[in-house]
C-alpha cells in the first residue's frame, strides 16, 4: 500500500483555541477513507487544511510527496475536492462552470470535459443554467468539476448531504468505483455512520479536534469482543453477581435481560456460573453492534480517558 496523503502532527489554533489537536494519519492509494465525527469535531477544518484553504498552525500535510504549505500548486494539483456544498456559478450553465475550472488547469481538452459530463450522467442538462438544477444534479456537477483533471486524491466533504436515498446510493457506488478502477484515494467526511459503513475501507474518528482512532471498517464495527444478551431471571441478582465476581466485564440491563461483552469461548463458562447460582437462563443471543453503537462507545471511552 502506497500512501498518498500524509498528515503529520497537524494542529490548528484559531484565536487561541485549539480546533485541531495534533492529528496524524495517512491515506493510501485506492482506498476510501472515512472521516467520522460529530458536528463541530473538526472534520471540515481538517479537510480545509488538506486542500490549502486554511493555514496549518503547526505540522505539515503532504499530497503525492509535495507539502501543501511549501509547494501548494504541486500538492493541490493532485486533488479534486468538494468542500461542503458544491457551490457553482448559478448564472452560468453547467458546461460554462466546467470550462471555468478547466481553464485553471493545464491541458484539459473539450473531449475530456464531454467525457466527464457523460461519466456523471449530466449530458442532457449540461447546457442549462445551474440555477435550474436540483441538488442532486449540482452534486454531480460538483463531482464532474473535481474529476476534470484526473486527480489522484478525491476529497468529498459530506458528499451525500441533502441527497435522497437514490442519490446517496449513486454517489456511494460511484465513489467505490473510482477507488477501485482508477486507484484513487478518496477521503469522505460524514457524521452519518451507516453511510460510512457502506462506503469506506477505513475510518478515522475525530472528536473535539482529536483523532481518537483509525480502524479498518470491519474491525471497527465488530470490535475484538462481541456482545451477548443473556435472558436471565432474576436479572438483578445476575448483575450483582457479575459485578462482584467479574468486575472487568461490562454489563448492562437490556430489554430481555442483561447484556455483556465477552469473547465467544467464554460463554459456556458464564452459563455455568449462572446455573450454579440458581439463575435461570432462557436464552443467549449474540448482539451485533451497529456502527453507531461502536461510535458512541469509542467516543465515550476516549472522552472519559481524556479526563483522567
Amino acid at each position, binding site marked *: 500500500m502506497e500512501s498518498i496523503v500524509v498528515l503529520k502532527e497537524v494542529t490548528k489554533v484559531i484565536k487561541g483555541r485549539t480546533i485541531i489537536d495534533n492529528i496524524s494519519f495517512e491515506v493510501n492509494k485506492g482506498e476510501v477513507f472515512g472521516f467520522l465525527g460529530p458536528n463541530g469535531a473538526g472534520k471540515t477544518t481538517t479537510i480545509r487544511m488538506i*486542500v*490549502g*484553504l*486554511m493555514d496549518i498552525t503547526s505540522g505539515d500535510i503532504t499530497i503525492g510527496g509535495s507539502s501543501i504549505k511549501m509547494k501548494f500548486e504541486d500538492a*493541490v494539483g493532485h486533488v479534486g475536492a468538494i468542500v*461542503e456544498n458544491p*457551490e457553482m456559478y*448559478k448564472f452560468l450553465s453547467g458546461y460554462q462552470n466546467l470550462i471555468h*475550472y478547466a*481553464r485553471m488547469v493545464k491541458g484539459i481538452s473539450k473531449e475530456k470535459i464531454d467525457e466527464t459530463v457523460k461519466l456523471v450522467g449530466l449530458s442532457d442538462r449540461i447546457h442549462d443554467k445551474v440555477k435550474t438544477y436540483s441538488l442532486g444534479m449540482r452534486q454531480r456537477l460538483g463531482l464532474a468539476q473535481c474529476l476534470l483533471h484526473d486527480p489522484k486524491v478525491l476529497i468529498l466533504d459530506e458528499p451525500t448531504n441533502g441527497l435522497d436515498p437514490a442519490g446517496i446510493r449513486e454517489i456511494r457506488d460511484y465513489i467505490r468505483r473510482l477507488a477501485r478502477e482508477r486507484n484513487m484515494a478518496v477521503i469522505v467526511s460524514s457524521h452519518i455512520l451507516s453511510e460510512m459503513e457502506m462506503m469506506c475501507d477505513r475510518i478515522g474518528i475525530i472528536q473535539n479536534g482529536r483523532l481518537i482512532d483509525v480502524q479498518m471498517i470491519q474491525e471497527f464495527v465488530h470490535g475484538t469482543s462481541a456482545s451477548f444478551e443473556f435472558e436471565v431471571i432474576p436479572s438483578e441478582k445476575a448483575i450483582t453477581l457479575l459485578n462482584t465476581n467479574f468486575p472487568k466485564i461490562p454489563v448492562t440491563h437490556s430489554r430481555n435481560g442483561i447484556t455483556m461483552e465477552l469473547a465467544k469461548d467464554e460463554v459456556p463458562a458464564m452459563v455455568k456460573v449462572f446455573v450454579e447460582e440458581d439463575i435461570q437462563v432462557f436464552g443467549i443471543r449474540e448482539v451485533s453492534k451497529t456502527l453507531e453503537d461502536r461510535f458512541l462507545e469509542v467516543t465515550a471511552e476516549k472522552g472519559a480517558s481524556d479526563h483522567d
Partner: protein
Amino acid sequence: MINLIRNELMKIFRRPGTYVMIAILVVIVSVTGIFMKYNLVEEEPNVTEEWKPVLQQENEALKKQLESSPVKLEQDYYKKQIAINEYRIEHDIPFREKYNVWSFVKDSSELILLAGLFTIVVSAGIVASEFNWGTIKLLLIRPINRSKILLSKYLTVLLFALLMVGILFGFSALLGALLFGLPEQTLPYLNYFNGRVTEQHIVVYLINYYGLGSIEMIMLSTMAFMISSVFRNSSLAIGLSLFLMFTGGQFTALLSMKFDWAKYILFANTNLMQYIEGTPLLEGMTMTFSVIMLIIYFVIFQFLAFYVFKKRDVAA
C-alpha cells in the same frame, strides 16, 4: 493568466446586470447629446469673424491684472492665458469654434464619473461575490496560487474600466458626429506647459483628457477592490467608495482652505488636470508630487488587498 482573465470576464458578461450598466451609460450620453443639441441652437451665431481685436483687448486687461495681483497662483494663471491668446493671434487659430463632435466628447468626459461608478460596482463585487456565492472554495483549490487569482481579478477590473471609458468615448464621438457634425477644419488644442505653448491634435488631447480624468475612478476602484478583498463585503466596498467619490473632492477642498496637510489626501491628487489647465489646489503642489502620492496610495491599497487575501483562512 489569460485564461484566468477570460474566466473573470465570463463571470462579468454572463450576468445581465453588466448590460444594464452599459445601457444606462449609453442612454445617459444620448440624453445629454439631445439636450445639448436643442439648447445650443441660439449660441451658434456667436462665432464671430472679428476675434483678433477681442483677444487683444482681453490680453491688455489681463496684463493689468497680472501687475496688480499679489498671489503667485493668480499670476501663473494670467500668464498662461496671455501666452495662449498671443499664440492664437500669431498662428491664426480662432478661440471659439462651432460646437462640434470634439466639444461634445470633451463635455461627455463629465460622465467618466458614471463609468467610474459602474467600475466600482464591478470591482467591489469581484472578490466579495465569490465569498458570498461560496464559490471561493472551489476557486482556491486549483493549482494556481492566490496572488495570481487576485491579480487576474484586478486586471479584469482595469479592463472593465477601460471598456466603460472606451464605450463612453466611442459612443459620444459617434453621437457627437451625428448630432453636431465634424468641424470643417480641425483646430488643434493649445497646450501651455512651463511657459511654452504647443499644439496638440484634438483627438490626442481628448484621449489624454479622458485618461487623466479616469485616474480618480481607477484609484477608487482600486480602493473598492481592496475593501472587497479585505472585508469580503461588497456593500461596504460600494458604499464607501461611492460616498468618497461624491464627497471626497469637496471635503478635500474645504480642508485645503484651512490646513496644509490636505495635499496628502488622495482626492487632492486625483485630478492631474489641475496642473495642465487650471491651477493646483494648494500652492507647492506639483505634478510629480501628485503622481508620487497616487503611487503611494495605490501601493498601500494593493498591499492590503494581496496580503489579506493570501493569508486568509477560507471558512465561509
